[in-house]
Structure formats: C-alpha cells, structure tokens
C-alpha cells in the first residue's frame, strides 16, 4: 500500500468524521447536552488532527488544534455550548471540511475566514473562561515534551526508578477530589519489539494528573534464565485525573494490543490492606527519568544499585502509597506467583474482551463501488437468464412436470432475493446529502442576512447511491432558491406577522416504491403576478394567455427564468429551476411545486429508489412489446364505445366517471402505425404526468407486470424521444421502456423532441 492509498483512506475517514462532527454539533444546537455527543464531536476533530499530523497537513492540523482546544473547554464544562458558541463551531466545521478538501484536491481555502474563526475559537477558549487552567492540555504539555524527551539507549529501554527495600509511607495520601484510577499496565514483549517504550507511555500518563507508579518485578527470573528480549516487569499505577478513562486509554492507544491493561476507579478500602503487601509500592517522580543514564534491562545487580542511588536523588513525594495497588493485585501478590499470573492475565483478557465487544458494534467494510456495480450487472443478467429459462420451460413443458416448475419457482425467489440484497448494498441513507444542505443554508443565510432554520426529517431513508450522488446538485439549487427567493427578510417576516426566523423543512420518505423528497419553506410563496409578467416580458407566454395557478407556478421551471430583482451571487443567474427539473428528470423523477401566497412553497420530488430496475407493465403496441413504468399508471380500463367521444379533427376523449380525459394512441405517437387504432379493441392506461394532467394511453393489450432491468439505449445508440430506456425480456429480446411524460407532452401537439418547449411545462 503506497502513501497515496493511505492518504486516500485518511480522507475517506475524514469525510466520515466531518459528518459525525456536523451531526453532533447540530444535536448540540438542538439542545442535546449528552456528554457522549460532546465527546463524539471532540473525537472527530481529534482524529482529523491526528491523521492530518501524520501526513504533514499543517494548515489542517493548526486549525483542528484550535478547534479541539475550544471543544475541550466544552467537554470539561468550562464553556457552555450556547447558540452563539455553536454558530462559531458550525462555521469552524465548515472550514475544517474546506481545509480537508483543499488538502485532498489542492484547492484553496478562504484564509481570511479561517483566520477569523481561529480568533473566534481562541476567544471562546480563553475569553469566556475565567480560570487560567482554560489553557488546553496540549499547550501546557508542549514545553514539557520538549524538555522531557529522554535519551533512549540502543536497547530502547529507559529504567524506571524503584526500590527492592521496604519503604514506609511517611504520610497518608491527601484526600483527592478528582477521581483516582488504578491502572495495571502489563506490557508484552511485542510492545518493545514494535519500538514502543513503556517509559514514554508512563510519562504521557503522568501528564494527565498526579500519579504514582509501582513497578512489579515478581516475574523477573534469575540472571541465567533471563531472556533479554522478554518483558518481565509490569506497573501498577495510581493516577488522579479528571480527564476520564478515555483519556487514559488514549495514552495507550497504540500499545493496547501489545499489553494487558486494566483500568479501574480506586476505592478507599485499598488503603487498609497496606501492611499485607509483601513489597511496598514506591512513589517516584517521573522527572528523574530525564536526568538518568540509560541502563540495560538485563543487568539486574547494576540496576539495583542505580535504583537506590536514584531514590536518594529523587524528590520523592510519598503521597499516594496506600491505595497504590489494585486490591486484586494485592491478593494475587499473597498467593504463589505461578497462580497469580494467569489469574491476573485472565482478568485482563476479560477487560480487553469487553472493550473489543463495545467497539465491534457495527462492523463495516469499504468496498469499491465498481465491484458492487459489477455484482449488480451480473445479478441483472441472472434475472434475465432466469426469466428466459422459465419461459422456455413453460413453452416446452406440456405436461407440467411439477418438480421442474417447483425448482424454477424457487430459483425465481432466490434470484429476487439476491437482487434485493445486492440492491441493498448500494442503498444508503440520504443523511450525508441532507447534512450538506445544512451547511448551504447557513452560508446563504449569512450572505443574505436572513435567519433560517433548517429542519430535516427522514434522514435515514435509504436510496440507491447513484440517486444520492445525483441528488446533491438539484437539492443545493433548490435550497438556495428557497432561502434566497422563498424566504423574506426578517423585517418583512415580522411585518407579515411571522417569526423573524424562516423555516426550511427538508423531508425524505418512501412512498409506493419511490423516494419522495419535500422541500418546504414558510416564505412568501410564489408571486404569480410577477412570474406571469416576467414570462410575458421574456416572450415565454402570450400577454393574453390564460394560465391556471399551477401552470404559472410551473413557469419557474422554464429555462432562463429568474424573478430575482437583482442578480445575486446565490441564485438568480437564470440557471436555477430548469436545471433542477432536468436533473430530476434525468434520474427518472418528477418535480412539482405547490405554493400558497404568504405561506410559502413546497417542492415535491419523487425519485426512483434505484436506477437499475423498474417495475413495469408489459404491453403490446402494434405487435411490439413495450414496458410502461408502473409508477406512472393510475389505473387501467377497457374502454367502451359509448365512452369514446371525438373532439375536433382527430382528437378523442374518453369519459371516465363523468370527466373527460384525452386519449393518446401510443402506436401512433411512436410512429409504429400510420392511422389511429380503434380504442375499443385496446386497453387504456390512465397515466398521470408531471404536470398533474391525466391522459389515457391506448395500447393493444396488456401482457403482465414484471420487474425489468434497465438497459441504456444511449450507450450504443442515442436518446430516442418518447423512450426512456430499454430492457431485455424473458425471451431475450429487447423491449423499450416508455417515457410517459414525453409521450404525454407529445400528445399535446409537440413533436417528440428531447428539448421540451414551454407548453410542455405550462
């Protein structure tokens, strides 16, 4: 694995961390005060900082560091995460995302903005916190680290000062308010083999708070049996810290696989059993380590001498002798050493096992999208082949051999199940896209000086990855429009009797096999007079055109249409809603708007859950087999002669429950036949098109319903007006999938051209 791959993984993880960060901040913004949320946010920034440091991404590191510092204040309850604080933090999250992107793609970031935010963050960390201790741990630690880096000898071992002699406790430990942890740190030889250094870990630990250490050398064999590469010592540490167990674990982060680690809160009873200890723990000051010469582990006698020498030098504070050792370790010490060791390690394993179980809650793997796509293609082929097999068996099997049929039925169910499971691999919650939107809302709210609240619902609604990827762009446009055009300025809102803060609600839900995304704002709604005037000015409609409200609303989807009085940075370049509409249509979706003057507008998008399969009705038209998407069909009916009414030269209407609906001969529209078919001989499919209007599509016969795999026509051919895509049916032949909206538009007198003219919209 080369550096770039590792870096790529880092950036992928960054994306996840950024998402985690943003969702955590938003939770806090909504009043969540769960310490876990704060921790999650902190961890996210911390991980990014750590990774960025490894890759030398200095900009990222320095920003993340300041951010982390401020978050640390929140974490330790020195800073209350009020709305103002969170506003800065959310902005910082945005900048952090920008910096990450810039680090990956080499783009530039708004440096003034990040500098400004660094200042704001620092102000939060310092200004609002009275105690001097507000300074972050890292900052305090830095000078220490610089001085304290000890010389490491060739063996990579630093001696720890200790004494073999009994050592009397001079005084009782002072009563500590901060929780005291008892840690048993039992390195394995692997720890040293991997270049880790117990001393450094202990020193890091000492920075967390007041610490005393006892080194247990029970396991040390006599010199002739000593293996120089084995680890014989373990340490019992008592640490008074308010940083929490996580911070302690963090110290051992890179060593945890190579040592047994037990961490527990100290209890006072430990003090009473002090005398029973065969060997007194020796408290010592770690700072002596820095002045001491390096000593090899093998030379025990020498070490002994050195140790007593060190004791003389060391500024030994005898605090914390009593509860220095774990109770369990005490009893183990009284028992024979052979028995004690396995017991302790078993306990340690138990603890490690629990930890592993906690982190293994939802195991995930990263898979290349290409591999998944290949699998999906193959399953598509499997479905087609299975259908072909079934069909040929049905054709050749005159006496209906039940075992073959049963086998085939089972095969069919299995293929369906495989297909569903494979599709589920690609299904992702819309959450990441929705989260991106909250950032866009913040930015535009800032730019326009409006106060906006984004409410998202149904973030966990799952939809195919391709749909998600293509959703971001139109959604961004729409959100921008909603804030820029939809919502009024705070003054106007107050004047209209609304709250100053506008609300944009983004909702996702599943509805009849599609995902429906709704974007609602509580703004002024569409100004129909203005839209109409604009359309007339731009020669889009005739001045005397008689349009319904719905038709006027839909004018905004027309290319080159923007009602913003002045062209703003945000929207109003006239490339808004028509682009949105086109990209939604390209996804096989529909978009509608409904607006109430004074109460806001609702955009409703309905999208297929996947772009790979479609439930369709297989029909026959002029001897050709076509597939009509099931989602478009409202109902099917067998027209009676009495229900058909001629209208004008060659229009016909069908009366359905006393309303008239235009009849469209699919065969004629697609040029499959020269003259219109007799409606009475065929079947009418009542379809609803995007404009909301209903049409009755005439087909010759219905063959059945089937899930079909969508095949691109464009790959080897070209876009065909009136045809959405192709599929392969059970007999191996290609069938065309009807583009219902285009057919309906064509029936309104347009030629079937990919570019829709205005009348198709209005």
């Amino acid at each position: 694995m080369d550096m770039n791959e590792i870096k790529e993984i880092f950036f992928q993880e960054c994306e996840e961390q950024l998402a985690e960060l943003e969702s955590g901040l938003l939770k806090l913004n909504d009043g969540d005060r769960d310490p876990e949320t704060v921790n999650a946010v902190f961890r996210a920034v911390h991980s990014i900082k750590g990774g960025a440091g490894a890759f030398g991404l200095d900009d990222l590191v320095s920003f993340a560091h300041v951010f982390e510092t401020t978050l640390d204040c929140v974490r330790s309850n020195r800073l209350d995460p009020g709305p103002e604080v969170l506003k800065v933090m959310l902005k910082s999250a945005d900048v952090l995302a920008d910096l990450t992107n810039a680090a990956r793609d080499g783009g530039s970031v708004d440096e003034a903005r990040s500098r400004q935010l660094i200042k704001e963050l620092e102000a939060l960390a310092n200004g609002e916190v009275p105690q001097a201790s507000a300074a972050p741990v890292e900052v305090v630690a830095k000078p220490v680290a610089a001085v304290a880096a000890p010389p490491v000898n060739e063996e990579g071992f630093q001696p720890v000062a200790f004494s073999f002699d009994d050592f009397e406790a001079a005084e009782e430990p002072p009563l500590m308010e901060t929780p005291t942890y008892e840690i048993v740190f039992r390195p394995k030889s692997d720890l040293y083999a991997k270049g880790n250094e117990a001393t450094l870990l202990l020193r890091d630990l000492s920075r967390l708070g007041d610490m005393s250490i006892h080194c247990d050398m029970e396991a040390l064999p006599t010199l002739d049996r000593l293996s120089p590469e084995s680890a014989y010592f373990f340490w019992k540490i008592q640490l008074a810290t308010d940083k929490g167990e996580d911070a302690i674990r963090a110290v051992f982060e890179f060593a945890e696989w190579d040592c047994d680690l037990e961490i527990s809160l100290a209890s006072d009873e430990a003090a009473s059993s002090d005398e029973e200890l065969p060997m007194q723990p020796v408290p010592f000051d770690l700072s002596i380590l820095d002045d001491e010469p390096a000593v090899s582990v093998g030379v025990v006698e020498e070490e002994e001498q050195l140790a007593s020498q060190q004791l003389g030098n060391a500024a030994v504070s005898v605090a914390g002798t009593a509860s220095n050792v774990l109770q369990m370790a005490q009893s183990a010490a009284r028992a024979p050493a052979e028995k004690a060791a396995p017991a302790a390690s078993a306990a340690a394993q138990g603890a490690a096992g629990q930890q592993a179980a906690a982190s293994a809650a939802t195991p995930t793997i990263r898979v290349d999208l290409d591999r998944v796509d290949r699998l999906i293609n193959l399953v598509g082929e499997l479905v087609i082949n299975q259908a072909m097999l079934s069909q040929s068996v049905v054709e050749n099997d005159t006496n209906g051999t039940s075992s073959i049929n049963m086998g085939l039925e089972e095969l069919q169910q299995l293929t369906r199940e495989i297909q569903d499971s494979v599709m589920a691999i690609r299904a992702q919650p819309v959450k990441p896209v929705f989260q991106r939107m909250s950032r866009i809302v913040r930015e535009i709210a800032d730019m326009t000086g409006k106060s906006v609240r984004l409410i998202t619902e149904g973030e966990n609604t799952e939809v195919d990855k391709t749909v998600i990827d293509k959703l971001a762009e139109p959604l961004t446009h729409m959100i921008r429009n909603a804030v820029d055009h939809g919502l009024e300025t705070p003054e106007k809102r107050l004047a209209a009797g609304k709250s100053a803060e506008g609300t944009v609600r983004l909702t996702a839900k599943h509805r009849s096999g599609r995902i429906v995304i709704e974007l609602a704002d509580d703004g002024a709604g569409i100004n129909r007079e203005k839209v109409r005037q604009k359309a007339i000015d731009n020669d889009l409609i005739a001045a005397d055109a008689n349009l319904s409200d719905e038709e006027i609303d839909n004018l905004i989807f027309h290319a080159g249409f923007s009602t913003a009085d002045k062209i703003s940075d945000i929207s109003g370049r006239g490339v808004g809603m028509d682009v949105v509409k086109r990209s939604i249509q390209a996804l096989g979706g529909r978009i509608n708007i409904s607006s109430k003057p004074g109460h806001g507008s609702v955009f409703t998008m309905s999208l297929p859950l996947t772009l790979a399969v479609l439930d369709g009705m297989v029909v026959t038209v002029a001897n050709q087999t076509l597939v009509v998407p099931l989602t478009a069909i409202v109902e099917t009916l067998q027209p009676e002669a009495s229900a058909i009414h001629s209208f004008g030269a060659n229009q016909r209407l069908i009366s359905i429950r006393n309303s008239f609906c235009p009849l469209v001969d699919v065969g004629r529209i697609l040029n499959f036949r020269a003259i219109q078919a007799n409606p009475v001989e065929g079947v009418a499919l009542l379809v609803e098109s995007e404009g909301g209007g209903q049409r009755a599509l005439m087909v010759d016969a219905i063959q059945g319903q089937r899930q079909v795999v969508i095949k691109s026509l464009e790959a080897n051919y070209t876009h065909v007006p009136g045809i959405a895509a192709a599929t392969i049916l059970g007999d191996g032949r290609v069938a065309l999938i009807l583009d219902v909206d285009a057919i309906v538009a064509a029936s309104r007198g347009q030629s079937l051209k990919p570019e829709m003219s205005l009348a198709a919209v209005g």
Partner: protein
Amino acid sequence: MTYAAKNLTTDGRELIAFRVGAQEFCVNIMSVREIRGWTPATPMPHAPSYVLGVINLRGAVLPIVDLSARLGMTPADPTVRHVIIVAQVKSQVVGLLVDAVSDILTITNDKIQPTPDVVSSEFEKSFARGVLAIEGRMICLIELEAIFPQEEREAA
C-alpha cells in the same frame, strides 16, 4: 472462398471482407468484435430507415444498421442467412447487417488503390478509403467512422 496472399510485411494489415448485395466491401479487422447470425430486432421509433432496431447482445442493447440501406442501395430483407458484424465505432458498438462475410485479407498498404473518381456523391467519397483488386474481384475498403459520423448518430 479465396485464399488471399499472406504478405506479412511490417505495414501489412488484416481486413474483413463481406458482401452487401452484389458488391464486396472490407473493413479493418481491428474494429470487428464478433460476427453472429441474424436475430429479429426490436424496431425503434423515429429511427432512420437504415436502423433496423436493437437486439440483445449478452445484456447490452445493440443497434442494428442495414449497411445496404446505409450505403444507398436496396434495403435488405433480413433472413436467417444474413450475418451481423459487431463492430466498434468510436466509443459505441454497432451491429452491421450484411449478406455474408467472405474473406479475411492480409494486405500491404501499397495494394490499396485510390478510389476511382467515378463516384459522384460526396457521401460515397467520404467513406470509401480505396479499392483492392483481389483475384479479379473489386473490394471497396470503407471507413466505419465515416459511415456513422457522431453528429448524425446523435441527430438520428
């Protein structure tokens, strides 16, 4: 079938010769993916007359072009005896309906004679890259990319 002289010089190239109506044509073998029998195609609405429709080629949708009609000759009436040459044209794959594949030729570039200036239409000039005299027959070397210019395919 005629045995074509194998002349494996450095500038030698291999061509596939096929019959359309009474004439013989050839294309560079490197653009040919496979040769398969005729299967009924699904007609496409609003397609040019020379596009017979689309067929299923192992899961891909493959348009079939009647080369005879495309070259301005009598449209073919496809039967099971017809052959589809699956060819790569730029990024797309198309099926060419021809009467029969007749030969694989290995020739050197100097065997290719310039197209006689009897051809009148610009279209024929654009796709004919030269003619070959092989054992008394005349085989016209055609350029597939000229037959299916991208703009025309998109407009189709």
